[in-house]
C-alpha cells in the first residue's frame, strides 16, 4: 500500500458566496491539505466536520508531515483563523510535523491575534442531578422562606415605628406624594373595581336565583347577594385587584429607583427611605382601599339588584325592602373594617419587594411577580383569620 493515495475531495456546500473548502491528499507519511474559499463564520460547521475527518486520518501519522496550503482562501475571519489554529495545534498534538506557510498579510495578522489570545475553554459548571438537586432546592427554598419572613417582619417593625413617628409629628408627612398616590391608587382604580364588582353582583344574583328557585325561595337571592357582597366579595375582590394593580406598581416604581441608585441617593441625602417612599404609598392605599371597597359594595349590590329585577321580577323597591331585612350595619362594617388591614399588607409587601430589587432589570420583574403573589396570598390568609375572629366574636 506504499503508493496508494487516499484523497478526500470536498463537495463543498451549496451556499452563496464562495463556501469554505478543505481538501486533502495523503501519500505515505505526508498529508497535503489545501484550504480554500471563505473561512468565515457562515461555513464553520462544514469546515469543522471536514477537519474532524483530517484529524481522524492523521491519528496514525506520528512522525509524518502535514502540509497546509492556504493559497485558496478568499476570505477569513476570526472564527476561520481559530479553526486553522486549532487544526494546527491538534495535528501537532498527534505528533505530526505541521507546515503552514502563510502568504497573505491579513491572514497572518488574524492568525497571530488568535494565537496571541490562546485561551482555555472553561468547562461548563455541572448541575447536580435529580434527587440531590431536588433536596438542595427544597432546603434552599425552606431557608429562604424563613429568612424572607424574618426580614419582612423587621421591615414591618421599621414601617410601624416610622408611621407612629409621623403620626406624632404630622408635619413630616409628605402630602404632595400622598395625594399623587391617592389619585393613582384610588381614582384611577374606580372603573375597573366598579366593573368587576358589578359583574360579580350580576353573576351571583343569576346563579343564586337558579338554585333558590327550586325551593321557591327566590326572594332570598337578595339576602345572598347582600350578605356575601358586603361581608366578603366586595372587599376581597377589591383587595386582589388593588394588589395586582397598585402593589405591583409600587414594586416596579421603587425597584426602578433602586436600579437607578435613587434609593442610595435618598439615603446619602439623610432622608428616611420608609418615610419618603413607603409611608405616602401606604397611607394612600389605606385611605383608598376602604373607599374602593365601599364603591365595590354599592356596584355589587346594584348588579345583583338589576339581575334580580330582570330574572326574578323583584322590583327595586322589593329589593331594598328585603335588603333592609337581610342585613344590619354590622354586615357592612365587618367587610369594610378589613380594608385598611389589607391595604397595609399590600403596601408593605409591594414596597418591601421594591426595596429588595438589586442590580438588574431582571430583578425588577422577579420582585414584581413576588410582590403580587405574596400580597394576594397574605390578603387571603388574613381574610380567613378575620372570619375566625368574627365567628368567635359572634358577629
Amino acid at each position, binding site marked *: 500500500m506504499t503508493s496508494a493515495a487516499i484523497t478526500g475531495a470536498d463537495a463543498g456546500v451549496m451556499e452563496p458566496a464562495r463556501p469554505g473548502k478543505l481538501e486533502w491528499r495523503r501519500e505515505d507519511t505526508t498529508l497535503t491539505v489545501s484550504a480554500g474559499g471563505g473561512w468565515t*463564520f*457562515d461555513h464553520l460547521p462544514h469546515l*469543522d466536520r471536514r477537519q474532524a475527518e483530517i484529524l481522524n486520518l492523521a491519528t496514525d501519522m506520528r512522525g509524518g508531515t502535514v502540509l497546509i496550503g492556504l493559497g485558496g482562501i478568499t476570505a477569513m*475571519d*476570526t472564527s476561520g483563523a481559530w479553526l486553522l489554529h486549532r487544526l494546527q495545534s491538534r495535528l501537532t498534538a498527534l505528533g505530526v510535523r505541521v507546515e503552514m506557510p502563510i502568504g497573505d498579510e491579513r491572514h497572518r495578522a*488574524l492568525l497571530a*491575534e488568535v494565537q496571541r489570545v490562546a*485561551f482555555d475553554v*472553561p468547562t*461548563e459548571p455541572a448541575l447536580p442531578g435529580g434527587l440531590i438537586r431536588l433536596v438542595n432546592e427544597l432546603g434552599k427554598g425552606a431557608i429562604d422562606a424563613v429568612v424572607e419572613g424574618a426580614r419582612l417582619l423587621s421591615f414591618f417593625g421599621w414601617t410601624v415605628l416610622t408611621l407612629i413617628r409621623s403620626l406624632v409629628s404630622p408635619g413630616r408627612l409628605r402630602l404632595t406624594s400622598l395625594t399623587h398616590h391617592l389619585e393613582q391608587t384610588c381614582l384611577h382604580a374606580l372603573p375597573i373595581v366598579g366593573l368587576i364588582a358589578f359583574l360579580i353582583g350580576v353573576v351571583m344574583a343569576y346563579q343564586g336565583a337558579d338554585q333558590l328557585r327550586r325551593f321557591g325561595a327566590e326572594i332570598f337571592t337578595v339576602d345572598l347577594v347582600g350578605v356575601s357582597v358586603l361581608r366578603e366579595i366586595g372587599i376581597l375582590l377589591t383587595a386582589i385587584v388593588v394588589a395586582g394593580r397598585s402593589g405591583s406598581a409600587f414594586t416596579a416604581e421603587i425597584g426602578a429607583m433602586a436600579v437607578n441608585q435613587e434609593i442610595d441617593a435618598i439615603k446619602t441625602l439623610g432622608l428616611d427611605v420608609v418615610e419618603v417612599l413607603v409611608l405616602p404609598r401606604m397611607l394612600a392605599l389605606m385611605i383608598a382601599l376602604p373607599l374602593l371597597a365601599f364603591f365595590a359594595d354599592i356596584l355589587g349590590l346594584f348588579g345583583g339588584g338589576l339581575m334580580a329585577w330582570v330574572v326574578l321580577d323583584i322590583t327595586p323597591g322589593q329589593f331594598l325592602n328585603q335588603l333592609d331585612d337581610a342585613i344590619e350595619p354590622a354586615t357592612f362594617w365587618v367587610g369594610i373594617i378589613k380594608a385598611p388591614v389589607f391595604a397595609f399588607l399590600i403596601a408593605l409587601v409591594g414596597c418591601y419587594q421594591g426595596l429588595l430589587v438589586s442590580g438588574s432589570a431582571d430583578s425588577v420583574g422577579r420582585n414584581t411577580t413576588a410582590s403580587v403573589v405574596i400580597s394576594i396570598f397574605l390578603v387571603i390568609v388574613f381574610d380567613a383569620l378575620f372570619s375566625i375572629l368574627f365567628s368567635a366574636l359572634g358577629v
Partner: protein
Amino acid sequence: MDEGTAIRIRGLCTQFGAQRVHDDLDLDVRRGEILGVVGGSGTGKSVLLRQMLGLMRPAAGQIEVLGYDLAHMGRNAWKSLRARQGVLFQDGALFSSLTVAQNVQAPMRERQPLSPDLLRDLAALKIALAGLPPHACDKYPSELSGGMRKRAGLARALALDPDILFLDEPTAGLDPIGAADFDRLIRGLQQSLGLTVVMVTHDLDSLAAICDRIAALVDKRATVGTLEQLRAADDPWLKTYFSGPRGRAALAGDAMSKPLMDGRV
C-alpha cells in the same frame, strides 16, 4: 458609493419638536479607520449613532452603511447588514439573564445552528479576544465590574466578525489605566481584524491615542479632520475643547505615549 467608504451621510437633518439638532450634516467614514465623534452636550452625538444604526429615522437626508441605504431596506437587507456591524453600548447592554458566554453566543445562534462544543469554543475565543479571563465565561453581567462588562459587550459585538464596530463612549467610567488598556485593545483589534470603528467619545486621551480622524459636531454640522487639523481650526468651541487644560494634557501625553503605541498589543 466607492469601495473606500464604509458610511456615507448626506444632508442629514434631525428635529426634536422645534429644536433642530443636525442641519444638512454630511459625513464620510472611510473603511479601516477609527473615527472619533465629539461634540458638546446636546449636539446629537448619540442621536447620530442611533441613526447610523437604523434605530432612529432622520427627519431628512440619506445614510448609507456598507452600501445599504438605510431608508429603503427590507427585512433581509437588515439581517445581512446587522451581521456586518457590531455595537458596544455605553454600559455594555448585556442581557442580564444570560451569562457572558451565552450573551456572545446569542447572535451566533441566531445566524446558524452550531454544535454546543463549537459554540462554546467560539464564545471563549471572542471573550479572550476582548481581553477577558476564561473564568468570566460563566459569570452573569451583574457579577462583573464596569470595565469587564464593557469587554463582555465588546466580545458580543465581535461575535459575528463585523466590518464596522460602533462604540458609544467606550472608555466612560473606566479608570485611566483601564481606559488606556481598552484603547489599546480597540486599536489592536481594529488592526488585526481590519475593522472600521466609529466611536462617540469624550475622552481626549482616546481621541489622541487611537482615532485616525475626528468628526466634531459643531453648529449642527460635522467638521472632520485629524487631531492636528481640528486644533488648528478657527471655531471657538473646537479651540476651547482642544486647548483647554484637559485637551493640552491629553495631547502632551499623546506625544509621550506614541512610541508605545507602535508595538503590537
